[in-house]
């Protein structure tokens, strides 16, 4: 049996706790707004370096890439996103050599699993965090990653890390 005293203490305790709640939200009303407004804040947008948004093939200033057209990425791709189309060329000394003709990447099929980048023996491809990939038609998502007229670059001694720092990424883009 609850006594009248308990009843009143319950009542006033309840009122006190309600007022505490109200005071908390009142303070919250005047706090700084945390909303980030996306298209306007592009400049100060912070996206993790490890974010995988789009596959690219970096080219240097001589329009040279590192892809030897071995096809390992194509084989490793779980859902047929990558298509490596090769052509046979002859070097000066008459040797026949397989060379990259077109590197087709279908962004619409990609699951961003990163298997292609991990397995690439010559670190020819990488993921960037350029994430604004929306298009109105699906065929625009199918991209050719090697630039027009590009060729295989001379192999350099490169650090084994396949993930260059973001600054280098910016340059290579």
């Amino acid at each position: 049996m609850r006594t009248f005293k308990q009843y009143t203490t319950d009542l006033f305790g309840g009122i006190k706790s309600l007022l505490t709640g109200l005071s908390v939200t009142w303070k919250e009303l005047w706090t700084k707004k945390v909303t980030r407004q996306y298209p306007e804040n592009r400049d100060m947008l912070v996206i993790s370096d490890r974010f995988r948004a789009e596959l690219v093939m970096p080219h240097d200033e001589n329009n040279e890439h590192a892809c030897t057209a071995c096809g390992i990425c194509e084989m490793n791709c779980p859902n047929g996103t990558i298509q490596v189309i090769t052509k046979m060329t002859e070097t000066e000394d008459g040797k026949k050599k397989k060379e990259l003709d077109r590197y087709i990447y279908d962004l619409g099929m990609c699951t961003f699993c990163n298997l292609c980048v991990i397995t690439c023996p010559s670190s020819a491809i990488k993921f960037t965090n350029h994430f604004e990939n929306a298009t109105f038609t699906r065929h625009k998502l199918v991209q050719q990653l090697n630039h027009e007229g590009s060729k295989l670059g001379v192999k350099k001694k490169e650090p084994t890390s396949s993930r260059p720092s973001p600054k280098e990424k910016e340059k290579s883009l």
Partner: protein
Amino acid sequence: MFQSYSQPLEFTNLTSWLDAALRENLPEFWAVFIELALVGVVLLAAYAVLAMILIYVERKITAFFQARIGPNRVGKYGIFQTVADVLKILIKEIIQINKVDKFLFYAAPFFMIVASVLTFGAIPFGKSLQAVDFNIGVFYVTAVSSLGIIGVLLAGWSSNNKYSMIGAMRSGAQFVSYELSAGFALMTMVVLSGTMQFSEMIENQAYCWNIFNGHISSLVAFVIYLISGHAETNRGPFDLPEAESELTAGYHTEYSGLQFGFFYLAEYLNMFIIASIAATVFLGGWMPLQISGWEGFNQLMWYIPSYIWFFGKVGVLIFLSLWVRWSFPRLRIDQLLNLEWKYLLPINLVNILVMVILVLTGLTLTDLF
């Protein structure tokens, strides 16, 4: 004596001019007829516009409470957001549902709308800015606003959906319980003012608002009225009928398009109606803040048009309701009924007795000073 002050911004000027012009040029019957039609159109327009403003204000204030910005894309500061929403809801398809009770299903939203429009007519928005001024205004408002619950129950019953039904039943239980408290709180104030007519009530509060006049008792009644009014609108911590996680959307689960819009509109307008009745009964309605003896101050206050006073007071109360809504967690149904039957109602009954004693023994502020 108030009429002697110059009030160029008052609506009275416009309405009396219109009345005179109509009566001069038309026979009595047609003049009255046109005036009635005009009042109806203006009320309905005000109803829609107010709902739109309220929805915008609610979304903005909600956002501020959650440290967000809120709608800010459609127009400057997003002021056209609700216009866009209303247009969207107007052109949306009303989905025909197979196994509903057709007649009741389509009638239910109108009960809600009609109940709140009827109440809307009795609210004094400003000096002589009231569609009907019954001598039993408080009683009328209480009676008519209770019609809404029929809409809710019909909606839940006719939807042929268990969630709707449970939601409607909860709403019914909640509404019936809290209507009692709201009614008693208003009765307390009727005891204090000695009248049920809104216009007289406001005149009585010219120099001392009811909330000050009845001090302790008035304050308790005010708080109880706000709580129970808030519960009646099915919002805030009392939104059990629409408990999303349990009942999808409660009684309006099966509604779509404009029919849902009606429920939505009525919800917001009910919030406004509760706030405006509270403002009228407790805070002096459209009456400016006046202090007897300070003639200059009073004169200054009268230069602010009465409808601005009214909407200002209502705005404060609506803000209070939003503040409560975004502060407290939802109650369970048993806690809800506990609060009403074990706390609000007994306190209310004692309070009404205290008020009667205060009035009879002359302990109200106007009697004392």
